[in-house]
């Protein structure tokens, strides 16, 4: 029952937001996100095993309101709750048009994304999958850059096509099951094993398409850089820190266990696509001058590595993937916050027009450097633990080309170091650009950033809590 609170608090607060006006909405958003974080944190800290809750929902179809919180789900719910708190705090002083709709939609998307991570029923999963998309569609189209409407629509169509294909697969799987609740996760898994090998293989693509678009995996990534660039920063954070996790989570929870044979059959294909994506995105990141686009391509490279590790299908890789889902969310949130601070102060994101931030805003620069290190996975930062395990996982995979994969994907570390450090160099050092309001971090930004940095360093030095939390989920995936 308590699991439902994770979803209900943001959902109700989101609906309420549309009624309130002005600053009251911000307070409501802050209270609700902190309450969600408190509940999520409490549940995550106190439960050792997976918790379940289920009640009747659609007897006509046999779908249930069935939620489950195991290590992975709880960890991701915690990530969502945490990132939302950071978003609300860091934007406290930033005026935004139509505040109530903005925060209302944001909270609704939080409810949807959390629901995706908790759903233990395929139809419920699909419901939340779309429920997360619709508010984000409105958020991206209403607030952001000039080309936002067109770009967002492309994003929407890509995702919608993907999710409809997944829907057909869900119906197909559910129709194979004779049970009274054919949509329950366990029955979907059972139905997957009943498909003939040929069926498995094309059903695999129907489902994978939805997740591949969301992550995004090369060549389904073309919506992503533009959408990230055009949306306002809080929405970009939701997209890149939380929504992409829906894709990778979907693979781990709803694809690999359901169609293990097909996943093994296609694993080389998917890993090759991922590896191509890693190198391709890294190369593109190098030539970007817009900070947001650079981070967007960096994100594609990171997600590619995570996807490859998922399909490498080894225990250490899976475990690392779960840890990395959390860490990547935190790292990239911090990165976007920094970029948003830079943009607010200098009025531009173009690296060629920036420089010398270290002298005018030393605190921002320190945070920037720490986050840059974490994003290129330097030891002692949280990025290192996950990435190390991911490479380890790919290395141990059964594929005959495992070493090739590791070597080529490993290039991304070198390339990553190049473009991330270059970004730091161009913005923080060099000739000093003075803009109108070159202030250092404000109080609310400091609080948000302190949270992020503390987590980055803590989990970099002592990742045990995260590893313990996801241990059983990873063990269950790959016995």
């Amino acid at each position, binding site marked *: 029952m308590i699991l439902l609170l994770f979803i209900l608090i943001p959902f109700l607060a989101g609906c309420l937001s549309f009624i309130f006006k002005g600053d009251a909405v911000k307070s409501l958003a802050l209270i609700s996100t902190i309450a969600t974080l408190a509940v999520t944190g409490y549940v995550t800290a106190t439960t050792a095993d997976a918790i379940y809750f289920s009640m009747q929902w659609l007897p006509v179809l046999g779908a249930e309101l069935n939620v489950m919180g195991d290590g992975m789900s709880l960890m991701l719910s915690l990530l969502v709750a945490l990132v939302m708190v950071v978003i609300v705090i860091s934007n406290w002083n930033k005026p935004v048009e139509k505040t109530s709709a903005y925060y209302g939609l944001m909270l609704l998307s939080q409810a949807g994304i959390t629901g995706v991570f908790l759903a233990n029923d395929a139809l419920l999963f699909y419901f939340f999958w779309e429920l997360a998309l619709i508010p984000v569609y409105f958020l991206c*189209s209403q607030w952001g850059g000039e080309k936002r*409407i067109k770009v967002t629509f492309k994003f929407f169509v890509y995702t919608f096509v993907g999710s409809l294909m997944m829907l057909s697969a869900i*119906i197909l799987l559910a129709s194979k099951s004779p049970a009274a609740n054919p949509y329950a996760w366990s029955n979907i898994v059972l139905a997957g094993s009943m498909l003939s090998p040929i069926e498995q293989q094309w059903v695999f693509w129907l489902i994978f398409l939805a997740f591949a678009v969301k992550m995004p995996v090369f060549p389904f990534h073309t919506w992503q850089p533009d959408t990230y660039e055009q949306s306002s920063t809080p929405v970009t954070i939701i997209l890149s820190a939380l929504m992409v996790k829906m894709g990778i989570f979907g693979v781990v929870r709803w694809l690999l266990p359901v169609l293990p044979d097909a996943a093994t059959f296609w694993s080389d294909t998917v890993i090759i696509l991922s590896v191509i994506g890693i190198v391709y995105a890294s190369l593109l990141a190098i030539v970007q001058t817009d900070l947001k686009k650079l981070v967007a391509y960096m994100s594609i490279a990171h997600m590619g590595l995570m996807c490859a590790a998922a399909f490498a299908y080894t225990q250490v890789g899976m475990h690392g993937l779960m840890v990395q889902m959390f860490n990547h969310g935190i790292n990239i949130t911090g990165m976007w916050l920094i970029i948003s601070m830079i943009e607010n102060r200098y009025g531009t994101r173009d690296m060629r027009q920036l420089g010398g931030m270290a002298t005018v805003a030393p605190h921002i620069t320190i945070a920037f450097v720490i986050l840059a290190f974490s994003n290129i996975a330097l030891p002692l930062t949280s990025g290192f633990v996950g990435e190390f395990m991911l490479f380890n996982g790919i290395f141990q995979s059964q594929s005959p080309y495992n070493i090739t994969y590791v070597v080529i994907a490993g290039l991304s570390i070198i390339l990553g170091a190049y473009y991330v450090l270059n970004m730091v160099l161009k913005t923080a050092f060099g000739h000093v650009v003075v803009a109108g309001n070159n202030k250092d971090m404000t109080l609310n930004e400091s609080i948000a950033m302190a949270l992020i940095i503390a987590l980055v360093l803590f989990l970099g030095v002592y990742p045990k809590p995260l590893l313990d939390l996801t241990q059983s989920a990873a063990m269950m995936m790959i016995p």
Partner: protein
Amino acid sequence: MTAIIAAAIIGVLLMFVGIGTKNKSTMVTVSLVLVLALFGITIWEVTQTSHNGIALPPRLYFNDMLRFDGFAVWFNLLMTGCTLLYMLLLNKEIKKVGVHVAEYFALISFILVGIYLLSSYNNMLMLFLGIEIISIPQYILAGSDKRNLKSSEASLKYFIMGAFTTGILLMGITLIYGATGTFNISEYAQLGSSDLNPMVVSGIILIMVALGFKVSAAPMHMWTADVYDGAPTPFTAYMMTVIKAGAFIGFIRLFQSSFGQLSEHWALLLAIITAATLFVGNITAVFQQSVKRMLAYSSIAQAGFMLFAIQSFSVIAWQSIAIYAIAYSVATIGMFAVLVKMKDYTFDGFNGLAKKDPVTAFFTTVFLLSLTGIPLTGGFMAKYMVLMGVIKEGNLMWLVIFGLLMAAVSAYYYFRVIIAMYFKEGNAEYTSEINTIDKVLLGITCGLVILIGIAPGLFLHF
């Protein structure tokens, strides 16, 4: 049966109201009260289908020519409810169409008689009667804006093509009669593959073509856009929703219960018709500039999805057609209630509506999301159930995937309206203000759309 008689009497009464009074508001009030009474009668009929929770056997009338089973009376209830909703939302606009207001309402009640016949017929003659009773008032309604050339064109076009199709339907019925010697459709269920001779086969195909015309399936859809676009907007709303759903019931009743066992012989043809309908409807809708015409083409596309229901042969077929009919009707009626107020029917006419009237814009968004088939709305449940039915049959996965791709295309044109309302600058203008009562009614409609989406079981009591 009571409902049929009541609807016919109400129709006649309403015609006389037009003689008794010239006050349009009185006519509207009387019509609303009478249709409300009719709604009450259909509810009463539903309660008569079971006794102490045990379903009673179907009631037969006229030598088994009409057979009122649980589904038939329940469907009548749904469609009467939709009609009531339609009249509540659009009565002000119906008043504006012309001078003979009472007659419009009388025609609508006659159409209901036709729908009741189509949901309960057990005899080819009754099918024919039902189809004609829903068609002839439609010809008149389409042309009711006499001073408008487009309206007259719509009426004439529809009449000529409709009359021709009637001939095809009759030909089909005759051929089947010739082969079997009976009009009783439950006896057709005895037909086996060995009884298939050219007469039966061509009869089935001719009937499929004729009924396909009535539900605007491609390639028999040519009339749809012009008629729906040319007819006065309030009547377009009714023709696209309740009447189309009624024709579908006629279609599904025959092909499920009588020709179902022969499905291997006609299923492929119907699958191709379905694919063509989905393709033509969705792709053409993309290129429209007028929202009304876009909705006309999208109604072809939605018919494509309803055709899925005819291709599954379990209880889910009936459930899905009921849910689809109501989800689609409610959302479309709501959409038209807003459209009819707009001064400019093009997409640009909706620019900036969200700023001017956020409440109405929100309701419109929900209707459009439902038509697209986004979860939490009735449209999703409806699409889900029709697809479920087909997938359970097992051999039409290609059609399902094609249908879903087309559903993705439909997002394009439905979202154009949303984009215009929310993200484009402009000042959308109403012809007359949407007052509080209208907004409450729109709110109820919107609530219904969501209720169908989260609790479809409430709408499936048969």
